[in-house]
């Protein structure tokens, strides 16, 4: 394949040839350059990125919004609760936090006890 390129005011005659060994020979104004074609590895799609995290998406979680102590618990396993219903009271420093459910559902597992210290993000209840 032959090309004529104009870069600025200068003309370049370029000739590209593929050699038998798979290299590419590029002649620029008679001067030869040899390029080895890089082998591209066929990439398998990454499993870690494409597979879904191992969790049940039908399960709903109520988490601690802040670290503190569970001072009261208003819901127990088996209770059917509605969105907005309070499930626990979490005391943190001088703040009392009424924890409410963001979902309708049935409490499958209660993971807290009264006076238990919890960390921010810790799961308090699992709902079905």
């Amino acid at each position: 394949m032959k090309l004529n390129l104009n870069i600025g005011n200068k003309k370049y005659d370029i000739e590209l040839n593929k050699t038998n060994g798979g290299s590419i020979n590029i002649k620029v104004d008679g001067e030869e350059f040899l390029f080895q074609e890089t082998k591209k590895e066929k990439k398998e799609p990454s499993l870690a990125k494409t597979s879904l995290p191992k969790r049940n998406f039908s399960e709903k979680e109520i988490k601690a919004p802040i670290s503190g102590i569970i001072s009261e618990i208003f819901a127990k396993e088996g209770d059917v609760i509605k969105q907005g219903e309070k499930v626990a009271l979490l005391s943190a420093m001088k703040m009392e936090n009424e924890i409410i459910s963001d979902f309708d559902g049935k409490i499958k597992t209660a993971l807290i006890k009264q006076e238990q210290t919890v960390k921010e993000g810790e799961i308090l209840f699992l709902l079905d």
Partner: protein
Amino acid sequence: MEIKKYKKVSSTNLLAKKETNKPWSIILAEEQTTGYGRKKDYWFSPKGGLYFSIILPKSNIEDLQTLTLLAAFAVAETIKENLEIEPFIKLPNDVYINNKKVAGILTENVVGKDVKFSVMGIGLNTNISKFPKKLEGVATSLQLESKKKINNKKILVEIVKKIKKQLEIISA
């Protein structure tokens, strides 16, 4: 500043939770029958004291925690500016004068995935001339300490302005 004033309520925080969610509106009461602090500790709230709750704008919970701490500074600063008394802040957020408690602050939040509602209640012993026997050694009032009559409304407005300014700074 929108202030809803009541003669007698159970607790300004409790009323605020039912009454309104308009940010920076104030529930003010002349007296509380069941004023409380953290863990439902009783707060002596006879006529003469300053008892109010501030509806806070929806903020992230970390900012609310910081604001609760800074509220004690707002109360202490207001006392100092008005009465030339040097209050002492007992962390996280009680204000003392001469080793006796003069003010308490309690923030209550309703939290789901995010903060749905926040109210900050402040009880400040202003014009209280006498405390029950069991509180005499641990509580005091601005009137007892300064021998002056306190303008509750002025103190209230100054405290709320300072708290508002603090939230603007920390949430900026």
